[in-house]
């Protein structure tokens, strides 16, 4: 397991587990937020634009 003897040592991080895993956790959350934000914006745009298109089509035919 590289530098650490076993997995539980790795998790313990030489007593600094709280700090290391908290920082990595926050980074993961913020990276995840960035990806989620894109997906939400993309979905919001497509539903809005599609409905707009359908409306224009209908007004155009009417």
């Amino acid at each position, binding site marked *: 397991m590289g530098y650490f003897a076993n997995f539980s040592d790795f998790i313990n991080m030489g007593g600094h587990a709280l700090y290391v895993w908290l920082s990595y956790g926050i980074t993961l959350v913020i990276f995840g937020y960035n990806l989620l934000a894109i997906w939400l914006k993309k979905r919001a745009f497509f539903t809005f634009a599609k*409905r707009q298109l*359908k*409306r224009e089509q*209908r007004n155009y035919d009417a």
Partner: protein
Amino acid sequence: MLTVTNLTSERDDRILFANLNFSLHAGDLLQIEGQNGSGKTTLLRILCGLSSHFSGKIYWQNQDVSQQLPNFLQALLYVGHHAGIKAALTAEENLRWMQRLHPLLNRCTITEALNQVGLYGYEDVPCYALSAGQQRRVSLARLYLSSHPLWILDEPFTAIDKKGVLEKEALIVKHVQQGGMCILTTHHDFDLPKQTIRRINLDQLAHTITSVDTTPSYLVSV
């Protein structure tokens, strides 16, 4: 029944109109004429209790309107210059809020009203995405919803296309024929038989005041 006795309005020491007397009964359609700045909007706002720049008395059901305020406001629908629409909300949310304000906006459903003003399918569009004309039509959708006895409309036909104007006109006439009352300002002349409309021309009034200020105003009933 709305009665106004010697209503005088003065704005930054300019007399807009003075000693205005008229009364409105069920079935009356009153058109206020005059070029811009002659106090048309101010008059309407005074009647709705939205302006304090006046002297004189306003009676609702033969009682001073300040005593009758709750049921006067219950009976009144005011469509002003501003559309009164929140741009961040959708058309449906705006109208649902209006229904929450005015229990008498209950003649049909919001979708039907929006349909009547040609906004079918735009229920959930935020109003900032609508054009000024469309926002105005959302505001005017209240006319289809409203069963208020008294309508006070300030230039309801601005930014409305020809077809819309005719529809709104028909709606106002229907409202009045069903025993409602309506006061409105508009440059559009109704193509209606003369005797059904009463007109007050604020310019003529102003003219009479300045030339002969002692004679009280008169009621122009045509």
